[in-house]
């Protein structure tokens, strides 16, 4: 692929993702409305579908200023760090057989790395805001990221062992017989839990919990900067869903329909599950959240890894 083609395809992918994130906000608000027995957005367009367009215009035209005492450069840079790494992560996602921008042979770790970088958006945004609530939110974000990052990667290493590859395409192809969520139920559950934390979604959104921290690290943000944080969050939900589908739910594999359609349907279903979880689960206390990661998440991921490794060697006689 030449550089020019790669750039054009990247722009198309970014545009599609921006629209997908916008539509996802509408789906979430309508979904939450349904689950909470209220209407949700219903004024702009049919079923309120164009609400996200109206919101985008509103956010683009809103005043966006640096708070007094804040660090202007860092304050402006932080929201960009929320969205750009996640967009970069989509570069290695395999949407279908041979259908990815960059078929990196270690796409799994690349996506983990990109998701890890998003923590700087929250931490730096919090610090640059010159606000106590924001700073507390930033500290929570850093502690949560360090706690969950540890077993986020380990939880999916069982899949990597079974597939014998870190390439997303090869992992999907290895599931042509049986999907890995059947062989790796513990790994799948841990991955989804850590995925919610990595995407900073309820119930693991203590860095911005409005009941005790106003809006946490986003307290001082408005206009397009605020929108960029949200964009990063919604894109992260889609990216984590895409990664989960690839690793545990057979990626693009499925009968009759073309591969990319199957992939899109599965990612959509998992993203809906994120909304459902948000609607039904309360937030844990902050110490419970971090305690769970170190006392349960990490040991369980390590035990799962050990058992998977032993079984792979006993049954398959790998590696070699």
């Amino acid at each position, binding site marked *: 692929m030449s550089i020019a083609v790669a750039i054009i395809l990247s722009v198309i992918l970014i545009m599609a993702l921006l629209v997908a994130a916008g539509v996802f906000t509408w789906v979430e608000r309508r979904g939450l409305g349904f689950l909470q027995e209220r209407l949700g957005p219903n004024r702009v367009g049919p079923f309120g579908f164009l609400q996200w367009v109206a919101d985008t215009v509103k956010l683009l035209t809103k005043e966006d200023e640096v708070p007094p005492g804040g*660090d202007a*450069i*860092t304050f402006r*840079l932080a929201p960009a760090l929320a969205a750009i790494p996640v967009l970069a992560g989509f570069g290695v996602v395999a949407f279908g057989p041979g259908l990815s921008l960059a078929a*990196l*042979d*270690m796409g799994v*770790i*690349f996506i*983990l*790395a*990109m998701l*890890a*970088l998003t*923590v*700087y958006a929250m*931490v*730096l945004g*919090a*610090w640059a805001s010159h606000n106590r609530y924001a*700073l507390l939110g*930033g*500290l929570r974000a*850093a*502690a949560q*990221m*360090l706690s969950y*990052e540890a077993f986020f*990667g380990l939880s999916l290493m069982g899949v990597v062992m079974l597939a*014998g*590859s*870190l390439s997303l395409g090869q992992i999907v192809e290895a599931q042509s017989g049986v999907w890995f969520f059947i062989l790796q139920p513990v790994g799948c559950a841990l991955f989804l839990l850590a995925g919610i934390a990595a995407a900073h979604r309820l119930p693991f959104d203590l860095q911005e919990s409005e009941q005790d921290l106003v809006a946490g690290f986003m307290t001082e943000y408005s206009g397009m900067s605020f929108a960029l944080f949200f964009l990063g969050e919604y894109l992260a939900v889609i990216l984590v869903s895409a990664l989960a589908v690839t690793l545990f739910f057979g990626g693009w594999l499925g009968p009759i329909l073309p591969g990319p359609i199957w992939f899109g349907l599965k990612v959509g279903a998992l993203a809906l599950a994120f909304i459902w979880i948000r609607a039904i689960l309360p937030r844990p206390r902050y110490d419970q959240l971090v305690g769970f990661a170190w006392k349960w998440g990490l040991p369980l991921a390590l035990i799962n890894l050990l058992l998977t490794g032993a079984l792979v060697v006993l049954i398959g006689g790998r*590696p070699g």
Partner: protein
Amino acid sequence: MSWGFAIWAATLAFAAAVMAVTRASAVHALLLLLASLLALGVAFFAMAANFAGVIQLLIYAGAVVAVFVFVVMTVDAGEAAMAREREMLRSAWRWPALFVGLSVIPILFGIGGGPMGEGAPAGADTRELGLLLFGDWGVATELVALMLIAGMIGVRHLGRNLGPRLRERGRE
């Protein structure tokens, strides 16, 4: 990718690193350190060392600097601390800069005239790398891994229950 990209990214990494040690604001210095590590990751990718590249992004840029930022943001640097830093920077950086400069010269000469190979650098398979690390270099890998135990002991020490001792100190 190509050597051209690698040299470009490495130059950016070097420039960001130099700026990181000459900033008065600790958070700005950390941001530049982050930029330097990211650029280094890109340089690895450009040299087809994909594994080193993603590890650079995940471990160093993604986790290690996050810990630094976590600590620094809890310390109120303020204008007084920045003035002190500026005062120190006026003279303190000269000798370190000289030594770093001298050590960089051979690298620059290496880039200029060393055997770089033609076209794009050859990539390495992750499986081969893994087998090498846990095969031929197994002992060295295990020795490096042992260093993590020091971290574990440190965490155990810092995380010990200080409740009774703190209460005692309070009574004093």
